[in-house]
């Protein structure tokens, strides 16, 4: 495969898929895409698929890599357990990071502790890395009385101010200009803070991607744009999302830095993030990081990918598992062995089990008043009156809280 030599091992079957004709009339005129930008943005990599690395390319000492591995293991264990819980009906919804762990752990590890993180909705491990207690995260999944966001949002919509982890919201792209505004504000205040903002390949089509890139570029705002290119937006494959061979090249529309990185190589992601942050601090403005990875499972627990995605597309990615890769690296380096790894995984499992027990022990519902608080800094007439209205209605007729009552 010629491109192989040109751009290094192709990590992205979607690139091949992109050679296929598009659906619709356009088929008649389909022509193979250019490879120019694949050459301009070769995929940055530190670890090969067997976890081998050129020591010169590794920034981090072994003792710093091990925790990254642990966070990735925790993320995967959490995802697996929560999907199970959702199937059992114990939580209503879950959206995981299966196979994309390196994109999030590597970027968050590459930023400074004071940098603000603007999440999409898969970056739970980033909130944990920033000190969000695992138990608190589970409270959020249950939307229970201990939930830091008071049961107001769906599961997986956490927010954690002490760790500068912003509020997850569902609308695609909205966090992007906000990340620009925060970093711009920091510069105005004379503080060295660089925003890290997460989004997916689909989000590059959103209004907010365009305005965020424009605004950041024209004033060289210090932002790291971390695009998890996992090849899919729910059922929409990359080649139906855009006609470009890379996402990195979108940086040319704004005149900003970009890199294309192996998103399953946590060391490469970490190093690229460091470079992006350094450029931002040096006043060179934002960097667009295209982190090439793959969504190994459904979009969320509400989704079944078998309806639109042949297993054959997923197969090649299984041997690229980001966790296995850094695990082999640590084994090679001799700082991890089977016994230590087993202990580490046991710890993680125990943490999860304990946190889960704690979360399920809490009263399932936040107080009624929490529904009317914090709409405004202080409730207005409407919130005050309506709380009274609801309280007396409930006193009259507790069926109001009964989910089964009167459902058509």
């Amino acid at each position, binding site marked *: 495969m010629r491109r192989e030599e040109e751009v290094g091992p192709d990590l992205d079957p979607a690139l091949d898929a992109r050679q296929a004709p598009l659906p619709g009339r356009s088929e008649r005129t389909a022509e193979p895409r250019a490879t120019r930008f694949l050459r301009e943005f070769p995929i940055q990599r530190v670890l090969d698929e067997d976890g081998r690395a050129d020591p010169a390319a590794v920034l981090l000492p072994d003792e710093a890599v091990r925790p990254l591995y642990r966070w990735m293991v925790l993320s995967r264990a959490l995802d697996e357990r929560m999907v199970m819980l959702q199937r059992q009906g114990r939580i209503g919804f879950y959206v995981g990071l299966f196979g994309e762990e390196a994109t999030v752990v590597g970027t968050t590890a590459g930023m400074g502790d004071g940098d603000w993180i603007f999440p999409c909705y898969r970056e739970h491990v980033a909130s944990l890395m920033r000190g969000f207690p695992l138990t608190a995260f589970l409270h959020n999944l249950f939307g229970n009385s201990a939930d830091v966001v008071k049961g107001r949002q769906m599961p997986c919509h956490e927010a954690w101010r002490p760790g500068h982890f912003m509020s997850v919201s569902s609308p695609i792209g909205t966090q992007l200009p906000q990340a620009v505004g925060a970093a711009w504000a920091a510069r105005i205040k004379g503080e060295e803070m660089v925003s890290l903002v997460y989004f997916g390949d689909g989000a590059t089509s959103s209004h907010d991607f365009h305005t965020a890139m424009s605004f950041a570029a024209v004033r060289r705002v210090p932002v790291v744009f971390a695009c998890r290119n996992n090849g899919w937006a729910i059922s929409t494959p990359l080649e139906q999302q855009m006609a470009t061979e890379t996402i990195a090249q979108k940086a040319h529309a704004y005149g900003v830095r970009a890199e294309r990185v192996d998103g399953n190589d946590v060391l490469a992601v970490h190093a690229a993030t460091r470079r992006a942050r350094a450029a931002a601090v040096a006043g060179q403005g934002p960097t667009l990081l295209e982190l090439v990875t793959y969504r190994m499972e459904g979009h969320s627990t509400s989704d079944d990918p078998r309806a639109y995605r042949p297993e054959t597309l997923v197969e090649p990615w299984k041997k690229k598992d980001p966790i296995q890769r850094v695990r082999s690296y640590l084994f090679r380096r001799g700082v991890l062995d089977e016994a230590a790894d087993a202990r580490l995984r046991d710890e993680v499992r125990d943490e999860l089990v304990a946190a889960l027990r704690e979360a399920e022990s809490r009263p399932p519902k936040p107080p009624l008043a929490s529904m009317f608080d914090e709409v405004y800094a202080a409730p207005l007439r409407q919130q005050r009156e309506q709380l009274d209205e609801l309280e007396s209605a409930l006193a009259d007729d507790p069926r109001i809280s009964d989910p089964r*009552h009167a459902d058509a």
Partner: protein
Amino acid sequence: MPVLNVLQAVNDALKVEMRRNRDVVVLGEDVGRFGGVFRATQGLFEEFGADRVIDTPLAEGGIVGTAIGMALYGLRPVPEIQFADYIFPAMDQLVNEAAKYRYRSGGQYSCPMVVRAPYGGGIKGGHYHSQSPEAHFIHTPGLKVVVPSNPHDAKGLLLSALRDPDPVLFFEPKRVYRAAKGEVPAGEYLEPLGKARITRTGAQVTILAWGAMWHEADQAAREAAAEGIDCEVIDLRSLQPLDLDTIVASVSKTGRAVVVHEAPRTCGFGAELSALIQERCFLHLEAPVARVTGFDTPFPYTLENEYLPRAPRILRAVREALAY
């Protein structure tokens, strides 16, 4: 007659019209090969092909803007907004373009299309999979707004919308997408836009509702009957145009009205209904027009049952109106 749920009825209406009219095209996120996240467009891609069933990039403003262009050129686009909560990126194209195109061009151009969007709460969707934005569009002259409550109307109203000369927002009650089942005639039939349906006749209180909340209104009326209160229930079905004659006739008879909707109360469509009723039935009113609505907060998650204006709260308002 086949028994369908609301999703199947919507799907059936799209198939019927797409077979009849080659100009009807469906576009949106995940509507093609996948058939939509709720599967409302299932089977369309296979039957009508990629030209007429279009998976788009992720941008609602682009979906609606493109649909306007298609409509201007003579197609009948049916853009899908995956959740009504995500219609706001398309707000400018809807309010400043679709709504005004016929008027501002002196009638030279028009952009008939049907914007489909599942709306409302009751599926544990939290802030962003539960909103009811209908009031924004009812406040925008040039747009029509339709909300079916059952499979029969979903199909009949959608078929009418697909032949309407104006842009129509078609909000589908996702809470009862599967729960509301009923007999749906095969093939073609039209439910006119702008006609409400009196689903229960009564003498003492008129309950106005639409979409998913009609089921709560109906339940409340049945419970009221058990208490000896005789309610009339009107399913508005079409909010713009509005069947004001039916409403005025009913309230002039009962002298009492309770309006029900999921959207926050302040500036919701209930306010307009309340204003219209007191303007037209002033001398007949025995009690203030009551509003039983979602509260003035974002849509909550854990407490969504408490948030929704369900039967017990409606019943309470009915009793209060009677006792006024």
